[in-house]
C-alpha cells in the first residue's frame, strides 16, 4: 500500500487556474489573503479535478495570513473521500506584486507531504498568468521552488474541465 504515490507530473486544467483566480480575487480586493485546495487523483501523473474553497466559519482571511480550521479541513475531507479525491496542493495569495516566494510561515505551517504543491498567486490574486505564480513542491528538505524548466517538464496545463466547490464546516450531510 502506498499512501503517497510519488508524483512525476501534474496535469492541471487551465479552468482550475481560472476558478482559483476568480475565487481569491474578492478577498484580494479587500486587501486580504485567500486560498483554495486543489483536489484530484494522486498517482505518478496526478490530475487536479476540483478547486475547493473553504468558506465561512473557520477561515481567516487577513492582510498577511490565510488559515483554515481543523474542522473545515475535515469538511473538505468529507467531500473528497467519497469522490476518491486527495489533496494535491494548496494555493493561496500574497498581497505583494513581487515574484512570489514562500514565507517562513508557509514553509513551517504548510502541508508536509512529499510532492505536495504549494502555489502562490501574487498581487492579491491579480496575477493572471500561472507562469508568473510561485510554484513550490515539498520534498525531503522541505519546500523548494519549481524553476521554469522543471515546471515546464512536470506541469502540463490542460483544457480539461474542473469543478469548483465552496465548503463550509459542519457535520457531513
Amino acid at each position: 500500500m502506498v499512501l503517497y504515490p510519488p508524483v512525476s507530473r501534474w496535469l492541471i486544467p487551465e479552468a482550475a487556474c481560472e476558478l482559483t483566480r476568480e475565487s481569491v480575487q474578492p478577498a484580494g480586493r479587500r486587501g486580504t489573503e485567500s486560498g483554495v485546495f486543489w483536489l484530484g487523483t494522486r498517482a505518478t501523473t496526478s490530475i487536479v479535478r476540483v478547486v475547493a474553497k473553504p468558506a465561512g466559519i473557520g477561515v481567516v482571511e487577513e492582510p498577511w495570513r490565510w488559515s483554515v480550521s481543523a474542522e473545515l479541513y475535515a469538511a473538505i475531507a468529507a467531500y473528497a473521500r467519497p469522490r476518491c479525491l486527495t489533496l494535491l496542493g494548496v494555493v493561496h495569495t500574497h498581497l505583494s506584486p513581487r515574484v512570489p516566494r514562500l514565507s517562513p510561515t508557509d514553509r513551517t505551517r504548510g502541508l508536509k507531504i512529499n510532492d505536495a504543491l504549494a502555489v502562490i498567486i501574487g498581487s492579491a490574486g491579480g496575477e493572471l498568468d500561472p507562469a508568473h505564480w510561485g510554484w513550490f513542491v515539498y520534498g525531503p528538505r522541505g519546500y523548494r521552488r519549481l524553476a521554469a524548466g522543471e515546471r515546464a517538464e512536470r506541469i502540463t496545463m490542460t483544457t480539461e474541465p474542473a469543478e469548483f466547490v465552496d465548503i463550509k464546516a459542519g457535520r457531513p450531510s
Partner: protein
Amino acid sequence: MSIEAQQENVHGREQGEVQVTVDYLPATEDFRREYSRQVVLETIRAAVMSFFGVQDRTVGRDTYTYYLVHDGERIQDTQLRLEQVIGERAEHAHFSLVEEITTGGMA
C-alpha cells in the same frame, strides 16, 4: 470457522470491538483497525499519525498538533474513551486526521 469460534467472535464484538477508520486528506488510503471501545483516543491518534507518517511538531515558539475530527467536531480531549465519543452501541467509527493549515506572512 467453528460455531464456537463464531460465537466467540460475535461475543467479542458485543464486548466492545469497534471498527475504526480514519482518513487523511493528502493520503490515498484510509487507516483501518479494530479497537476496544474502552481505548483512549490518544492511542488511536498516535497510531494514526504513525500510519500516515506525520507528527506533532514545534517550530520556534509555535506548536503544530494533529487532531482527530469526528462528526464535524475536533476532539480536544484525547483522554476520552472511544465509547464516550461514539456511544455504547456503534460498531463503526470514522474520523478525519487534520492539522490546521495556516499560510501567509511577509514574503
